[in-house]
């Protein structure tokens, strides 16, 4: 439901062409010491860590595949993809299943799922895609939630640059 509302809000403001504080919902996740936000509209599901079947001869950040209710879903380690240390699976580790129209569903491994926050457009500082140094290219904005800063993940960068 929340997801639905978030979408409606966006659509409405788009139609009217006004900028009356668009509001977006983000799921806040933790990777190491940093907090990241994932746009809730792209999230299909959040599941507990489970046994991942390794697929040979693929880049290291492709951890393998899992069975999600009869579907085989590839799992990506964003830590490895962003050049961070390899994942350490713990009790809080979760797999977030993203919906992607281009390449089908995809799971990403995160250290912890914290909360859902609602950010208005004014709280978000958009970043250009120019900065390609290190993992900053995986981020397309920074959101201010109270006193905390949340890096907003650019999901296209995670799901798409696969084919390059």
């Amino acid at each position, binding site marked *: 439901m929340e997801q639905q509302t978030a979408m409606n809000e966006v659509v409405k403001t788009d139609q009217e062409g006004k900028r009356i504080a668009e509001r977006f919902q983000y799921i806040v996740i933790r990777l190491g010491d940093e907090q990241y936000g994932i746009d809730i509209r792209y999230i299909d599901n959040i599941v507990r860590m489970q046994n991942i*079947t390794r*697929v040979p001869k693929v880049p290291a950040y492709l951890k393998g595949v899992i069975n999600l*209710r*009869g579907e085989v879903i590839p799992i990506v380690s964003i830590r490895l993809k962003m050049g961070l240390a390899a994942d350490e699976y713990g009790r809080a580790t979760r797999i977030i299943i993203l919906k992607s129209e281009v390449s089908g569903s995809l799971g990403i491994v995160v250290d912890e799922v914290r909360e859902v926050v609602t950010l208005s457009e004014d709280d978000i500082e958009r970043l250009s895609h120019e900065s390609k140094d290190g993992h900053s290219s995986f981020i397309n904005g920074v959101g201010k939630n109270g006193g905390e800063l949340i890096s907003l993940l650019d999901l296209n960068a995670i799901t798409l640059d696969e084919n390059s």
Partner: protein
Amino acid sequence: MDVSQYLEIFLDETKEHLQNLNTQILNLETDAENMDTINEIFRAAHSLKGMAGTMGYKRMQTLTHDMENVFSEVRNGNIKVQPEMIDVLFQCLDALEEYTNNIQSTADEGTNDNEPLIKLLNDILTGGGKAEEPEAKSGSAPAESGASGDKKWNEIALDDSQIHVITEAAKMGKAAYGITVTVQDSCILKAARAFLVFKAVEEKGDIIVSNPSTQDVEDEKFDRDFTLIVLSEAPLEDIIKAACNVSEIADVTGAPLVLEETKNYRPMEEPAAAPAAEAEPVKAEKKPAAEEKTQAPAAKANEKKPAVSKPVVNRTVRVDIEKLDVLMNLVSELIIAKNSLVSASGQEQNSNSGFNEQIEYLESVTTNLHESVMKVRMVPIESVVNKFPRMIRDLSKTLNKKMELYMSGEETELDRTVVDEIGDPLMHLLRNSADHGLEDAELRARRGKPPVGSIFLDAYQDGNNVVIEVRDDGNGIDVEAVRNKAIERGTITAEQGATMSEKEIIDLLFLPSFSTAKKVTDVSGRGVGLDVVKSKIESLSGEVEVKSRLGEGSTWTIRLPLTLAIIQALMVVVGNEKYAISLGSIQAIEDLLPSDIKLVENKEVINLRGVVIPLIRMNELLDIESSRQADESLIVVIVKKGDRMAGLVVDDLLGQQEIVIKSLGAYIKQCKFISGATILGDGEVALILDANALL
């Protein structure tokens, strides 16, 4: 009126009817007297006409209407089936198919009126009648038997007083007309429409006879049409027009009444002067008017089926294949859930027996459910192969070779996705056999073969495979010619050519570079687009083989997995991972000692009963530690693709299992020897090794 929602059903059913017509007309060609066939054709044509009319495709309707007229005459025995007529009918079917294709791609039937065809049909109608009854008066011949669909008024038994009235009226300048009014299939208030027709006609003249009787018509005791005999001073056209103006009237035909042709007629008067041939153009004129009205009540078409009985068709429901996939996934989930229940119950030592019983029950239900869902995806290959007899017939005419197609096993079932794809390759092979395989009549005679060439299409199930064989008794493949051409073209060197076996040479035909060369195919007699056939079949996880004897014919064997969704697989362990290998590609499983391994060109091979087979260490290929020690014995799975073999060294065998193939998705595509994944009973994912890619 929006009929777009019915478009899909319309297309499906139209294709079915067209296929049916094709088959039946073929039958008719060989057995012109078969009443069942003729009836079947008539029904199919009639349904087509009704459907096209309902959807508002007028050109299609016009054409089918005229075809139906011809069939109707054939059915009534007024026209004999002749080869030219069959040709025209086939052309009509092609034209209808063209309409259908247009409709499918653009929702519009196109603008081709096919007037020449319609004219040919009408020629058959009139000309055919003449040929039959040369002594009959112009054009009225088809009605001679009295049972004519068009001239039902002749069936009416006139009593003396009525005949008297008619003859008297004629003297007063009133002509007698016979008129048949057909109400639309979809018409609900038939009696009311009929009443309006009566009223309209009575304004123009006097109705002296009605069949069924006026009372019956008012009580709706008639099927779709009723026939009137009208006395009028007005021209026939005016009366027909008046009747046509009533809505929901499908068709009005009329002609001057010829007393001699009516039932019970006792000769007393002069033959009616007006030639009945006039009736034909009158009728044609009326049609557009009637058709315009067909569109309006189209929505009701589904409520009422045509009065004629439909051909026997399987009782089926069309289901979107995606819905089946969803169902399939749900069943897989159910099985996984059931398996975890089973393992949970196994751990509980003290669990009561009632619980176990229920688990077992659940197990049998899920297994059955699984099987049924699998079966739903299977369809007979009939739908594909049915069009071939017609194709061979046409080829026979164009190539001017006599040939006959014998088919068996049309009921063999395959996965829906495979059936949809297999048509083109089969057509290719059949064309090949007809065009290049069968010799011309002269050569056949010299070889002592029967003048009519035979092509066989046999399908049957063989274990988990379906085999389709295309066989001909033609020339076979001239291996030497292929060899020479291959050397000439530089596909192989002369030395290679000398050492290659016959089979290897024949396999050259499947090479893309080879088969596209026209010149080669002229000499070899084979090969147009065989590479396409091969790649198509391989994309369906199948394989194609050819066996040939020069001068005796060739056999092309296509082997396809029963379904793409499920395969029988051998589960193996490499390191600590489980992999599935399709059972179809496994030749043998061998237990070998490390000392059996030889080195050839620094590659590991084994000599297995005289055959040297290269070894592939799966743990190295898959980048994983083997769980076996170097000095332990080796488990080698021998896989085979065509003539090539390889031994896959695995750590352990888990046994045979039926697995559901799942795609790894677009995201993972780097790995070419992994063809997919499957979900095991415990919910884990195992990858499927593609043995073909390893070879």
